[in-house]
């Protein structure tokens, strides 16, 4: 097992899949020279037929991905910036995601959307800092957001091998983290969450880069006698409800710690499910810590004011005791 960067784990997963399966192609902007670093050097190995640079045409390239998937390829589309999916909205939610159902199961679109840097990286303001996965969850699109290099590799492989559109959000704040990752190709099934740390007093449902923060928080609070359980769904849809309910039933207290918008966000959905399924086990109301419903402001102090962070998490945990 090696200790490698998250970004490297992602790159390795994609590279290996392209080696294994000639139908896997990567399509996106700047994928030859690889602005994001995921496909660096791929062009030399796989050539321009399988490492396909597109013009700045996000809606068009998404449609191209769908057409390629419908006709026998297994494309992986890279979106450099998460907001680029807004251009492609019709092609994502009205085309790729609906075609199978609307064709009565005749069409199949095995396409992976690699959203290569999601969330606020600092100083990029309102159009480069979103976490727009709730829009896709709303449409029923399978969506994963790995929090560790290990999860990133295994989940990306599963996403590529899945026969439906799958959105893979890579949190920008996780790309530079390191972790143990096996060299060989492996899969982590979609829909399987993980208890990243066991605890007995409170469950923190955390996603993406916030998992690491939740784990640090859990460690810090250990000395104050609060035992925090950290649940990472890893896949946002399908959600591992069983594991979630098990954790909630054990602790009776839940905080959903998620960096998408508050209104109709992922945290809202998780809270609703818990109140429907685990109401009698709850010792206090489910709390959400999300970003504020505003575009991410440029100014650093304002930026951190609106984002979920450790300080806010600790405050809410302590308030619940």
């Amino acid at each position, binding site marked *: 097992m090696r200790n490698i960067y998250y970004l490297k784990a992602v790159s390795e997963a994609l590279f290996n899949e392209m080696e294994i399966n000639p139908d896997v192609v990567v399509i996106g902007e700047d994928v030859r020279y690889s602005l994001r670093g995921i496909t660096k050097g791929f062009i030399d190995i796989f050539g321009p037929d399988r490492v396909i640079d597109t013009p700045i045409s996000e809606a068009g390239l998404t449609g191209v991905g769908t057409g390629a998937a419908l006709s026998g390829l297994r494309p992986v589309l890279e979106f450099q910036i998460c907001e680029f999916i807004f251009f492609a909205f019709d092609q994502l939610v009205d*085309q790729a995601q609906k075609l199978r159902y609307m*064709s009565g199961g005749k069409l199949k679109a095995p396409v992976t959307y690699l959203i290569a840097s999601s969330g606020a990286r600092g100083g990029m303001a309102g159009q480069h800092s979103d976490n727009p996965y709730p829009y896709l969850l709303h449409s029923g699109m399978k969506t994963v957001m790995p929090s560790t290099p290990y999860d990133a590799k295994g989940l990306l492989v599963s996403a590529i091998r899945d026969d439906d559109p799958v959105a893979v959000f890579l949190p920008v704040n996780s790309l530079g983290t390191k972790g143990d990752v096996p060299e060989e190709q492996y899969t982590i099934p979609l829909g399987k969450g993980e208890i990243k740390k066991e605890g007995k007093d409170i469950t923190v449902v955390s996603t993406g880069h916030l998992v690491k923060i939740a784990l640090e928080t859990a460690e810090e609070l250990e000395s104050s006698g609060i035992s925090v359980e950290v649940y990472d769904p890893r896949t946002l849809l399908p959600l591992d409800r069983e594991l979630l309910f098990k954790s909630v039933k054990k602790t009776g207290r839940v905080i959903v710690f998620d960096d998408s918008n508050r209104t109709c966000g992922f945290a809202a959905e998780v809270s609703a499910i818990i109140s429907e399924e685990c109401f009698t086990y709850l010792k206090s109301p489910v709390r959400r810590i999300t970003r504020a419903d505003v575009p991410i402001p440029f100014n650093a102090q304002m930026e951190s004011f609106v984002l979920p962070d450790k300080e806010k998490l600790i405050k809410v945990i302590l308030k619940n005791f």
Partner: protein
Amino acid sequence: MTEKITKNLALELYRKMVLCRKFEEKVAELVNKNEIYGTTHEYVGEEAVAVGVCSALRNNDLITSTHRGHGHIISKGGDIRYMFAELLGRVNGCNKGKGGSMHIADPGIGILGANGIVGAGVPIAVGAALTIKIKKMDNVVISFFGDGASNQGVVHEAMNMASIWNLPVIFVCENNQYAVSTSVKYSLKIENISERSKAYGFEGKTIDGMDVLEVYNNTKEIVNKVRSENKPFLLECKTYRYSGHFTAEKILNLNYRTEDEINYYKSKCPILSFSTKILNDGICTKKELDDIDNLVINQIDEAVDFARKSKSPEPSDALKDMYATEYTGIPQKGWI
């Protein structure tokens, strides 16, 4: 374009156009009787385009279609029994009753789906052409779209990508001159949409879309060119729809077209003008055409009968077919 037409081809083009026409007439009747749920967008008047184009294709050539797609599906070889069953929302409809009029898909005969969103099928066609190139196959893709779609941004993106990647796709613009109520005289500053091909670096041509032979012969030639040169092509067929944008448009009383204009194009009816021509040229007899008419009418009656006798899906089938790789828990119902 003076290639002599064989009797078989003439009768086949005629049969398909009549089938498209009679199909739509029956559809309108069933919509008006509320036997077909919702509404449809009839292809009446435009038959020469779909029939001319699709008759020049191989079975494994691919198409993407539009909201006004019945003619494309029929011309590409769609089975009208399953089409009617779909329009009646039955379980053995093309899409198991989940798509209806605007979404008929049949990948087995190269139909990658009709589309309810104007222009949305065009990049999908380009993606299919990318597959053909990468897998080194020799089929082509036809992307049908209208004058309205020609102004969608995604169509521009798709044409540009098809061009830079040298893809075997033919963009067939069915210019019926109206995007719902908006005339091309208002929405375009150019005379011919095919002129836009120059801007992307490939060839384009505008032809009379009311003349099935012109459409067929041009498509044959263009398909060969695209197959051998691996370059896209933009073929604009000037045509006209006799019906409103959708079945019940009349009651809205929009009056964006004059009766004179509609009558003018009706006098150029693609079926009537073609039958007149092949009769005058002595290619076939009146009786042969009448026989085809009768056959088509019977075929349609049988297809409607088939559809009516088909079972409705279970309401709970609404939760099926969402995913190709299934997981427990999805899709979720909207209640507990």
